[in-house]
């Protein structure tokens, strides 16, 4: 089954709903898997759903219009990126220029969070946002080099074409000049997902969960949903760019779960790096590897 014969409007409506549910499932798997690594039982896999239902049925405390608006902007930005990423054989929204659009839209979600948590007027929120932006400065440099490498190698800006090229030949992760960039991407993947050792943004013990410090009730529910969605988007981006997407959505889901469990195994046993340690590491080894990959691909042509 090459393409699902669905009207594009149905795809646009169903994909965000399915991705939100998948995000909740991933968060549940996170808590259960981490608990099992700690030799305890942990909550049921539906626990994030129960948490979000509880949060939406609480009476919130609001801090103004920008507070509402920023949270909605953040969730809307995450949902917009979702529509440009192919999931299995479900086609994305536009054909060409996909990678650049994704790169720009990935910035809208943290921007919304920064706007609304700044409105909360809590110093912990400002510290958290500055850490978040510094961390994204850290991983954006190797990420841009990796994406440039991929665009040069496959000669296209469209993520759909990259996925199809890999499905015809083999995964980019095992191709000879691209495996260097693949290893660099695996090294920055915990930073992109916001898990340890790069969990500096939401350090619950240090800065009272950073940007989330003033969110209560429904706002916190929306931010949790957006966190699940960020997991889905970033893992799906990696699977599409380096593991060849998949022919159908179930195989795509299996690949995403494998990457998630690998990331969680690292998350459960590592401590948190400081912001300056994280940025200096991200600008050293993954950036060097990504630069090597880019130079190799440009010479190889």
């Amino acid at each position: 089954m090459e393409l699902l014969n669905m009207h594009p409007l149905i795809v646009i409506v169903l994909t965000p709903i399915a991705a939100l549910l998948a995000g909740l499932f991933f968060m549940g798997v996170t808590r259960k898997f981490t608990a099992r690594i700690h030799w305890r039982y942990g909550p049921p896999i539906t626990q994030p759903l129960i948490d979000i239902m509880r949060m939406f049925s609480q009476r919130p405390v609001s801090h103004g219009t920008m507070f509402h608006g920023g949270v909605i902007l953040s969730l809307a930005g995450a949902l917009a990126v979702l529509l440009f990423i192919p999931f299995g054989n479900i086609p994305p929204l536009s054909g060409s220029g996909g990678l650049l659009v994704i790169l720009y839209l990935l910035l809208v979600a943290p921007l919304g969070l920064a706007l609304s948590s700044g409105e909360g007027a809590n110093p912990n929120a400002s510290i958290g946002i500055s850490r978040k932006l510094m961390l994204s400065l850290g991983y954006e440099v190797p990420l841009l080099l990796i994406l440039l490498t991929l665009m040069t190698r496959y000669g296209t800006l469209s993520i759909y074409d990259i996925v199809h090229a890999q499905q015809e030949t083999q995964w980019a992760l095992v191709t000879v000049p691209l495996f260097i960039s693949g290893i660099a991407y695996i090294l920055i993947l915990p930073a992109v997902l916001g898990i340890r050792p790069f969990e500096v943004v939401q350090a619950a013990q240090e800065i009272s969960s950073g940007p989330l410090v003033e969110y209560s009730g429904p706002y916190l529910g929306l931010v949790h949903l957006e966190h699940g969605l960020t997991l889905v988007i970033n893992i799906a981006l990696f699977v599409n760019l380096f593991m060849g997407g998949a022919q159908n959505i179930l195989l795509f889901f299996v690949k995403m779960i494998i990457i998630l469990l690998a990331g969680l195994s690292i998350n459960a046993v590592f401590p948190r790096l400081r912001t300056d340690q994280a940025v200096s590491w991200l600008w050293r080894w993954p950036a060097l590897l990504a630069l090597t990959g880019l130079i190799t691909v440009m010479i190889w042509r």
Partner: protein
Amino acid sequence: MDRNQLIKWLKTPAKMSHKYSLHAVYFCTGCGIIEVPPSITARWDAERFGVVPAATPRQANLFLITGYVSVKTLKAIIRTYEQMPSPKYSVGFGSCPINGGMYWDSYNTIKHLDKYIPIDGWIAGCMPRPEAIFVAVTHLWTLIDKDMADGYKRYEKHYSAFRANQEQVLGPLPWPPLFSSRETE
């Protein structure tokens, strides 16, 4: 067990979610806080019950007052309780919030916490074991089911009485009344 009652869930999903997702404010009062880290780590796992420490009071709905309450701490407890979004549940932990406990004749501790903050349940002991915390959580589930855990409603209804008690101990409070003219928090 309690969790398999699907019909009840479908009728009132909000109540089910309030039961099974109790995020506790990590407010460390007095001696009782020494019993909380063992109950949230691997040996006595509180995350099975949905009880997880929350980073700030705005993200929490369970308030455990663990241990004796001095007059200074009472001010912080009142501010923390008022920041939590409702519906919220507060539990007095140990014998000191119940009747003064070991500090029954001290000049600086609060003997009956229920006069200043509405308490939904008490856990007796000095200190209660982690298993007692879990028994208390299951009792709180039963109370929530029967709509008897209404501390937050009592606070709103009798706010002037609570505030009079608070001002008797702390003097004039520097923050305005929370429920003055029927507007939202």
